[in-house]
Structure formats: structure tokens, C-alpha cells
């Protein structure tokens, strides 16, 4: 891929990823977040966390099945870090707007309400992944360890989806699309292993 194309694509990805945050900021400043600003902020940041997490998980299968798309790897860290960015905004919005910085209220929530426990767990799982996202950390950890650690992203994604289901009312199916997307991506992993073996075998024989 040409360097200029890559720069263009990266710029577009940055713009798309920052879009919701810029929109929320604009709406907050102009007081146009809608009738229920708190819920708007919480839902927008939460939804984008899961969406970006799922998009980042789609990159590996895509590259493996379509070798021409190998360059997509250059976008995985970007998407992952933006997922963490929105997850952090989501967590901070809860701390500030729902719990009102009241520590005992937060502890009460985490102890009593499983959807909040699950949300907190998701953010805590993403934290070490974001922290070890630099080239320096990859070198320090070594590729193998780094890969092993970053398998946590699957756990985090599943926890995030469960958090969403536990948050909505029983009977509401809003998390369905994201759930199906994640399920497909997870189911693809064993297929991927088989696919790669199939391609390798003739060479070995």
C-alpha cells in the first residue's frame, strides 16, 4: 500500500473514531444532548466501546481469509485504543453523572448490581491491554507473552456484551446485533485455525 493511501485511511479512521466524542462534546457545550443528557452520554459511549472492540476483533479473521487485506493490522491497535477511550469515558460518566462521585454509592452498586460489576470488570480487563499497547511494551514482554496477555480481549468483549444484556430491561433485544456480530467472530476462530492448517499442509507434505 502506498504511504499516502495509508495516511489518508488512518486520518479517516481517526475522524470516524473521534466523531461520537466530538459530537457529544459539541452537544454538551450547546446544551443539545436531548431530554436525558446523562443517558445519552452513557449509551453513546458504551455502545461505541463495544462496537470498536468488535471491529478490532474482526481484523484478524479478515486478514487471514483475505490475504490481500494484510495491511488491516495497522489499524487494530487504533481501534482497540479507541474502544478503551470510549470505555473510559463511559466509566467516568457513570462515576460523575450517575454516582455523583459518591464512593459509598459506587461500592454499593458494584457489590449489589451485577451489571455494574460486569461493566467494571470489562474496563479492568481492558486496562492492562491499553497499558501494554506501545511498541516498547511489546518488545519488553516479548511477542509470545504479549499475545497471551492480549487474548484477554475476548474475555473483555464477552463481559461487555453480558453487561449490556444485564443493563437492558428483560424483553428488550437492543444488544442483539452486537451479540450476533461477536458470536460470529468468536465462532470464526476455530474455523480460522483449520483454514490455516489446510493451507500449510501441502507445503509440509
Amino acid at each position, binding site marked *: 500500500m502506498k504511504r499516502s493511501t495509508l495516511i489518508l485511511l488512518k486520518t479517516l479512521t481517526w475522524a470516524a473514531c473521534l466523531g461520537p466524542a466530538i459530537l457529544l462534546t459539541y452537544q454538551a457545550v450547546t446544551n*443539545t444532548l436531548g431530554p436525558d443528557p446523562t443517558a445519552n452520554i452513557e449509551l453513546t459511549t458504551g455502545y461505541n466501546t463495544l462496537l470498536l472492540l468488535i471491529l478490532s476483533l474482526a481484523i484478524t479473521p479478515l486478514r487471514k481469509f483475505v490475504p490481500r487485506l494484510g495491511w488491516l493490522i495497522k489499524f487494530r491497535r487504533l481501534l482497540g485504543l479507541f474502544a478503551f477511550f470510549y470505555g473510559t469515558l463511559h466509566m467516568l460518566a457513570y462515576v460523575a453523572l450517575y454516582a455523583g462521585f459518591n464512593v459509598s454509592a459506587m461500592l454499593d452498586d458494584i457489590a449489589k448490581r451485577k451489571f455494574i460489576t460486569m461493566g467494571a470488570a470489562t474496563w479492568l480487563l481492558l486496562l492492562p491491554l491499553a497499558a501494554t499497547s506501545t511498541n516498547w511494551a511489546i518488545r519488553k514482554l516479548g511477542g509470545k507473552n504479549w499475545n497471551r496477555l492480549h487474548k484477554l480481549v475476548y474475555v473483555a468483549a464477552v463481559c461487555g456484551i453480558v453487561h449490556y444484556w444485564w443493563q437492558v430491561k428483560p424483553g*428488550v433485544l437492543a444488544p442483539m446485533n452486537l451479540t450476533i456480530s461477536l458470536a460470529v467472530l468468536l465462532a470464526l476462530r476455530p474455523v480460522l485455525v483449520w483454514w490455516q492448517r489446510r493451507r500449510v499442509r501441502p507445503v509440509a507434505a
Partner: protein
Amino acid sequence: MLIGKPSDIPSSEITPRDAYEDYVNVRRSERRSFLRGAVAAGAAALGAERLGELFDPRIGALAGTKLDTVKSPLTTTGEDLTSLNDLTHYNNFYEFGVQKNEPGQNAGALPTRPWTVKVEGKVKTPKTFDIEALLKLRPLEDRVYRHRCVEAWSMVIPWVGYSLSEFIKQCEPLSTAKYVQFLSYYDKKVEKWASDTSIFWPYSEGLRMDEAMHPLTLLTFGLYGEVLPNQNGAPVRIAVPWKYGFKSAKSIVTVRFLDKQPPTTWNDQGPSEYGFYSNVNPTVDHPRWSQKTERRIGLPFYAQRKTTLMFNGYADQVASLYTGMDLRRNF
């Protein structure tokens, strides 16, 4: 769309209340003078307008039509009203979509005329009331009520209606009637969004007889002095201000008197989360959030949350209904 949700209407586009009223009045006087001016041509034009209603039910929507109202001593004073824009763009009416802004977009499909309310069950004789008759049954009162959703948000709404008890008297319930069930309109061809959920329709709600007979329980036909917008439960709903909002059934087509507690939609969906009584109670948490505080719709995101009041602030009037009851168990 890759990311994000559609933005809400910018505040610059929200029609202020008096500008809106001017608009409605001008429209009405335009129509009047038009008809006075040229009877024959006017009648023909009216015919054409009616013809339009056949093709687009929204043209026929009566929302915004002024109602003749009287003052009520049962009105709540001293709080800022939630704007008409917020009341009509932030709704839980899952038959028209589960997102708060969806009913405002989709409820135009609700056919509010002709409309009848069927009365059945433990009554002297089953009856059917036409909506026009219900509107004339008693003088319509302006009543401002606080409205507290189980989701921990709240509004202050200027409803229009009269006490449900006035209607119940006309139904002539038998002495064996202990509960009243309300069934909402349901037509899956009209309310195709309802199937985005796994909820069993039609929407069902219920009250104990003494709750239904309480003067605060309002049979509601309008808000802001006008006919109910469809997304707010047109053409007739109830408003029970000391209970969580979902108890106030919308777009009612059947009223059923029973000797036992009826099944109700949210109680069926999640019995541990939504009790039959669902009185506003800051001391009993929802399993997934505290009910101690609430956020008032329409305030900016940095606004302080409000303290939720027992029975939503109507304890003086209704607490006696529950004397001796364990409200923690009967939540």
C-alpha cells in the same frame, strides 16, 4: 452509519411554547375564515383534506386540538413544567419502538378515531364507551403531576382529564370487583416495532380497586391543554402519579373488572424488578439501580440529581391506602 446516534433536535429548533400556541391558533383561525369566506369552495376543500386523511393517518391526528378545561385543586404546584418538546420526544411506548425518540417518530400510525373503550368482567352489564362520550362525561381538568419513571428519571406534566373514579361509577362494577385491568391498543400491523422485543402484547396494567378509585388517579385525554399526542398514549390513558410511570397504561381499549390481581406486562417480564404495586419508593432499590434519586428530564447533564420522595411526593394523599402493608415485600 458507522458510529453514534442521530443527534437530538438542537434547542434552536425547539418551538417555544407561545410561538407554538400562536401557530396553532393561526392555523385554526385561518381554517375558520376560510370556511366562512367561501362555503361551497370551502366544503370542497375540506372534502379534499378529509380525503388526504384516508391516505395519511397523521393528517387526521387530533393532537394539538385545544380542549376546554377547568382548574383542579388536585394540581401539583411549585415545579417547572417539562417542555412539550421533551414530553413528546422522550417516551417509553415500546409498541412504537424501544428507543425514547422512536414513539415520537412512529406513533403517527396509531388510529385514534374511531375509538371505543370496552368495559367487561365483574360489572352489572358489559358496555362500550365511545371516546367522544368519554370526553364529555365530566369537565376536563388541568392537573399538573410529577411523573417518576422506574428508570430513575422524572418529569412534571400538565395532564388533562378527570378522576378515573368518575368513569368507574359509570361502569357499575359489582361488589366482587377487587381489581381493574387496563389493556392497551395492539395491532401488530400498525405497531410493527413491538416485535423488536420478546414482550407478550397487548400491554396490560392493573390497579387495586381502591387505588383506581382514588381521586388522584386520572383518566387522561390531554396534556398542555390539548389533545394527547399519539406518543403520549392517545386518545385515552391513565396517570397514576404516586406509582412508577409504567403503571399508567396508554391508549386504553379495554377496562376489565376482576376479583383477583390481573397479570401485568412488566411484572410478567421481570417479577423481581417490577412489582404489581410499583409505588414510587426511595427506600426500595430496583435490583439494578438505586431509587433514592432521580434525574429531571430537560436539565443539563451537570444538574444535581433530585431526591426521590416517598410515593413521589403524594404520601399525604395516598399513604393510607397501604396501611399495614409491608412495602418492601409488596414493592
